[in-house]
C-alpha cells in the first residue's frame, strides 16, 4: 500500500481521487454504490447565491467518446445548501469542497463567505469556467483581467484553501494559470468542459436547447493532458487534473503530466462505482512499479 496523500494547496487530502463538480451531485446520489468516505474529496454541484433553474430541456447530447451538457448551474442557492444539504453530507469522512459560482464578483464573494463559516468545508473551487451561463462563469475565465479580479476578490474574502477551476476555451492556458496564481489561488483545477455543439442533420436543429454546450468525456482527454502538463511546469501551486478520466491508467497519465490530484467526472455517469476502482488501480500501479508514494510519479513524465 503506497502513500497516497497529496495536497491541493494548504489542504492535505488522504488520496488523490476526487469527483468533478456537477457529475456527482452532493455525494448522496452515489451512496448506494460506493463508500463515499474512501474518496480523497468530493466537489459538490456548483452553487450560486440565488436559486437557479438552469437551461431548458434538452440539455444533453451524446457525441463520439463524450457528451455535451448545457445544465446551466441549476441549483437551489447557497442558503438552501447551508441549511439543508450541508448537514446531511457532513457525515462523509472525506473533504467536501464547494464549487462556487456567480454572475457577478459580489455573488462569488457572497457564496464564498457563507461557505467559509462551515467547519467541515476546508476548501472551495472557484468556477470561472462554466460555459453554459450568460453571465459570470466562462465570461470571467476567458478574460484574464476578469479572472484576476474575481480570484483576488474571493481571496480577500475567503481564508481557507482556494482552488480556481480554469476554462480550456482560451488561447494560452498558462497565462491564465500564472495570473490566478499571482492573484492568490492555492491550486488550479483544469479543465472545465470545452465549448462545443451538436446538430441533428435530419431535423436541421441543434441537439441542445442552448445550441452550444460543454464537451466532456474521453474526447477531451488529450486536450486536458496537454493543458495540465503546460500549466504544471509553469506554476508553483498544485494542479488538479481532469478531463475524460475513465480508469486508473488515465489518472496515472494525469499524474505523470504534473497533476497532484485528479477529479473524475463524466465516468461517474457510466460507472457509478468508477471512483473506487480508479483509487484501487492507482494504488496497484504504484505498488507494481515500486513507488512508495504518489508524489514520486507527479510530473515524472520521462521526456
Amino acid at each position: 500500500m503506497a502513500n497516497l496523500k497529496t495536497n491541493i494547496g494548504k489542504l492535505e487530502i488522504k488520496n488523490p481521487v476526487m469527483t468533478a463538480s456537477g457529475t456527482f451531485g452532493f455525494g448522496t446520489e452515489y451512496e448506494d454504490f460506493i463508500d463515499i468516505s474512501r474518496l480523497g474529496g468530493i466537489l459538490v454541484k456548483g452553487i450560486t447565491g440565488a436559486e437557479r433553474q438552469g437551461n431548458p430541456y434538452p440539455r444533453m447530447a451524446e457525441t463520439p467518446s463524450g457528451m455535451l451538457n448545457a445544465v446551466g448551474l441549476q441549483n437551489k442557492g447557497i442558503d438552501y445548501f447551508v441549511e439543508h444539504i450541508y448537514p446531511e453530507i457532513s457525515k462523509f469522512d472525506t473533504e467536501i469542497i464547494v464549487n462556487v459560482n456567480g454572475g457577478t464578483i459580489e455573488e462569488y464573494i457572497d457564496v464564498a463567505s457563507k461557505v467559509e463559516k462551515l467547519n467541515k468545508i476546508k476548501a472551495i473551487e472557484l468556477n470561472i469556467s462554466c460555459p453554459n451561463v450568460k453571465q459570470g462563469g466562462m465570461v470571467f475565465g476567458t478574460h484574464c483581467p476578469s479572472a484576476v479580479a474575481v480570484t483576488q476578490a474571493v481571496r480577500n474574502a475567503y481564508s481557507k484553501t482556494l482552488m480556481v477551476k480554469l476554462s480550456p476555451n482560451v488561447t494560452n492556458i498558462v497565462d491564465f494559470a500564472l495570473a490566478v496564481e499571482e492573484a492568490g489561488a492555492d491550486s488550479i483545477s483544469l479543465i472545465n468542459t470545452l465549448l462545443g455543439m451538436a446538430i441533428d442533420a435530419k431535423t436541421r436543429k441543434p441537439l441542445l436547447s442552448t445550441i452550444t454546450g460543454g464537451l466532456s468525456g474521453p474526447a477531451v482527454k488529450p486536450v486536458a493532458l496537454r493543458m495540465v502538463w503546460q500549466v504544471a511546469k509553469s506554476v508553483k501551486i498544485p494542479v488538479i487534473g481532469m478531463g475524460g478520466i475513465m480508469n486508473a491508467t488515465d489518472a496515472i497519465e494525469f499524474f505523470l503530466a504534473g497533476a497532484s490530484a485528479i477529479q473524475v467526472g463524466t465516468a461517474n455517469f457510466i460507472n457509478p462505482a468508477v471512483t473506487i476502482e480508479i483509487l484501487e488501480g492507482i494504488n496497484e500501479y504504484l505498488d507494481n512499479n515500486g513507488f512508495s508514494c504518489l508524489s514520486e510519479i507527479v510530473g515524472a513524465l520521462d521526456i
Partner: protein
Amino acid sequence: MNNIKAKKRVEDFTIIENKRLNKEFFILKLKSAGELPVILPGQFAEVRIDDNPTTFLRRPISIYNVDYSGNTIELLIKIAGDGTKKLSELKDGGILNIVYPLGNSFSKPAGTKVLLIGGGTGVAPMLILGKYMKANWGIEPLFLLGYRSDKLIIEKERFEALGKVYITTEDGSDGYKGFVTQHPILNEPESNFDIIYTCGPEIMMKAIAKKAKELNSACEVSLENLMGCGIGACLCCIVDTKDKGNVNTCTEGPVFNSERLKWQI
C-alpha cells in the same frame, strides 16, 4: 408513490434470451447471478452498451417483467439508434451490465377502476404494472394498447393473461382504428376512471392527460426523457413541474402525476 425502494446497484446479468418480436421490438431476458432486489412497476434500468465511441452513455430502458423465482428480468426494447441496434444483436450467454432499479413507481389508486394505456414500446411498464396490481392491490387491470399497425403488436397474450385488452391501430389492421384517445373506452358515459396510467410517445401522453382531465380521472404518466446518469447526478433529464420547477425525471420520476407537469394541454 411507493417509497419502499431497494438500493440501486450495478450488476452484470447473463442474457438468457434475445427474442425478436418484429422489425422494431425485441425482448432481452436477463438472469441475475444472485437474488433480485424488489423492482417496482415503473422503475427502469440504465443499460451499458459497449465501449464504442458512439455508444458511450448508458441507455435508460423500462423494466417489462420481473420473475423473482428465476431471478430474471425482461427488457422490452425498440430499435431506435446505434445503441439499441447493438443490443438487438446480443447473443444468448452474453453479459449485460445494468444499473438498477432506478426511479420511482406508479402509485396505488384510490379505487379499483383503472385503465393502463401503452403506446408502442410504452406498453412495457404497463405489463409489469398490471401484474403488480393484480398480485399486490387485488385490482384487475384493463389495458388499452396503441400501435401503428397489427405487425407491431407486442405479446398480446401476456397482457390478456392479466386482464381485458383493447387494441387500437392507426391503420385499422387490428382492434379499433385510430388513436388510443379515440377508443370508445375513453369516450363513454362510464369512462370515469379512478386513475389512468400511461406510457408512450409524449404527444400521446399529453392527449391522454387532457382526456383524463375531461373525465375527471387522475393520470400518471411515465416519461422517456433523454438521460445521462439515471441516478440524479447529471441534471440532464429534467422536466418542468408546477410545484418544484425543473426536477430530474430519473429520480423524481419517471412516473409523474400529469397535473404536476407544466404541459400545455
